């Protein structure tokens, strides 16, 4: 039986990497992610991870490049970052996904500059939406630990072979202590067997043993190869990656189920988590820290007699369209709380959900709110107020059609902006 420890979110992530016996770690420190890799570095230095190589690098771009290269030699690899560091990695993220490398990395979410902010919002984790990584959000430290183990299992599944982000809120989880059940390495090794990679570039330089490897260059068309099958073009590679995403959802559900059997802990169906949502007429929809806060708000509104529930999205990519259509099929209204903005449009979760529900048999009214950018405290009162305002709105059709999104917790009046005074 593994030990029950009191850990921060970052240290929970480090302990998960220890349990997963990661082989190569490279990272560059950035607030609020730094303690993850500091802890792993400590494990390596004190010989608690004897088979792990920790590569110190001079930037995030180098960190991701090092783990991408190490992954292509068949190693289980890990890195972590936040905000601007993640943006600095951007180029190599697409490279990791396009090469179908099953690396797992943590994002301790943080607002993107400018202006500088070290506090949490989800803008960074959503800004890498289209690079080809899977993205899973966590609500507590145990979930971080468990999600990393599941993420490796999913990413390394031969039906998937895609990299994965495990995202959790900076400070709110990354620096907050909670009890975390850690697991025995033997038990974890049974759930997470050694990586059987589709690639091993370590053999590349041996001319007698020319291994298969990353195609360095593709052309618009497929390329004939005398003596073997034609090489796919870029288009076929990218089609394959998209299909891997689409069908990964079944694998994710399967792994979540198996995880709960082995370790006895469950996070909904691995796709989303419901809270008092069975008979809900109004559902709240959010990820990470906002979803946690919504749980409190649901309790408050249930006490007041409103049939309100929560759907906390765990899996943001691949986006679980079918699951969301099903879970919201009888819901009258979904209130979405975004700790992010798709600048020039609206909250990212809100428009993703709207697009998923477009072809549903019947779709609920979807009302989006922006909350808590740059770490502004999001309270249950705000969420209750926002939900009730949407519920009380008589002309819901007009509310739905309004192209201006709404904000909770903005303090413009305290800055001297008064309505009707211009």
């Amino acid at each position: 039986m593994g030990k029950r420890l009191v850990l921060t979110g970052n240290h929970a992530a480090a302990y998960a990497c220890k349990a997963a016996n990661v082989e190569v770690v490279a990272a560059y420190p950035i607030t609020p992610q730094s303690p993850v890799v500091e802890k792993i570095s400590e494990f390596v230095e004190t010989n608690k991870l004897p088979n792990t190589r920790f590569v110190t690098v001079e930037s995030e771009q180098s960190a991701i490049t090092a783990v991408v290269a190490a992954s292509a030699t068949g190693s289980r690899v890990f890195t972590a970052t936040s905000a601007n560091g993640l943006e600095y990695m951007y180029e190599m993220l697409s490279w990791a996904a396009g090469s179908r490398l099953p690396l797992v990395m943590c994002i301790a979410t943080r607002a993107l500059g400018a202006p500088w902010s070290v506090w949490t919002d989800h803008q960074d984790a959503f800004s890498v939406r289209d690079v080809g990584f899977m993205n899973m959000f966590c609500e507590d430290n145990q979930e971080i630990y468990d999600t990393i183990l599941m993420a490796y299992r999913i990413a390394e599944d031969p039906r998937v072979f895609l990299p994965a982000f495990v995202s959790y809120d900076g400070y709110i989880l990354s620096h907050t202590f909670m009890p975390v059940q850690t697991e025995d390495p033997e038990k974890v090794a049974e759930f997470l067997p050694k990586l059987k990679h589709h690639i091993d570039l370590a053999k590349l330089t041996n001319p007698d043993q020319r291994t298969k490897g990353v195609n360095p260059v593709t052309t618009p068309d497929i390329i004939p190869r005398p003596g073997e099958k034609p090489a796919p073009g870029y288009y076929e590679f990218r089609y394959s990656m998209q299909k891997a995403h689409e069908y990964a959802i079944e694998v994710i559900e399967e792994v979540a189920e198996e995880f709960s059997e082995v370790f006895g802990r469950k996070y909904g169906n691995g796709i989303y988590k419901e809270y008092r949502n069975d008979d809900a007429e109004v559902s709240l929809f959010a990820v990470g820290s906002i979803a946690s806060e919504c749980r409190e708000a649901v309790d408050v509104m249930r006490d007041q007699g409103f049939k309100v529930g929560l759907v906390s999205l765990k899996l943001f990519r691949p986006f679980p369209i079918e699951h969301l259509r099903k879970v919201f099929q009888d819901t009258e209204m979904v209130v979405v709380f975004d700790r992010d903005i798709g600048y020039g449009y609206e909250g990212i979760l809100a428009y993703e959900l709207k697009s998923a529900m477009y072809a549903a048999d019947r779709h609920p009214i979807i009302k989006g709110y922006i909350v808590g950018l740059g770490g502004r405290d999001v309270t249950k009162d705000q969420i209750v107020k926002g939900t009730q305002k949407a519920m009380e709105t008589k002309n819901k059709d007009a509310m739905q059609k309004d192209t201006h999104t709404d904000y909770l917790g903005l303090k413009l009046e305290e800055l001297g902006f008064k309505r009707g005074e211009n």
Partner: protein
Amino acid sequence: MVHTEEDKEYEKNVSQSILASMQKIVTGEAGKTGSWRSMRPIFNADKCIVVKTNKPTCHLCWLYCPENTITREIPPKIDYDYCKGCGICATECPTDAIIMIPEQKEEGNLESQEQKEEH
């Protein structure tokens, strides 16, 4: 058009088969990149440390070449089919044994070769 079970099986098979590693590595599949070169590295064996010591001592040109077009031999050889003429070898060479000169068509570079082949 709706995806049938057969479509789904087919797509799963494709997604599990077309991976980054499905092909053996080959050289120059997308053409000979040496044709991009505007500056040509010229190697002077008299100044080369490797040649003078007759040992694999320096080989900084081999180490730094981003296109892996310089061999780790005595003397090092440059593969002009793929050398893009970036000049890093010339910059790194401690004894200036590699100099960069403007590429000239009559010296038999790839562009002129290709033109000849076309005619």
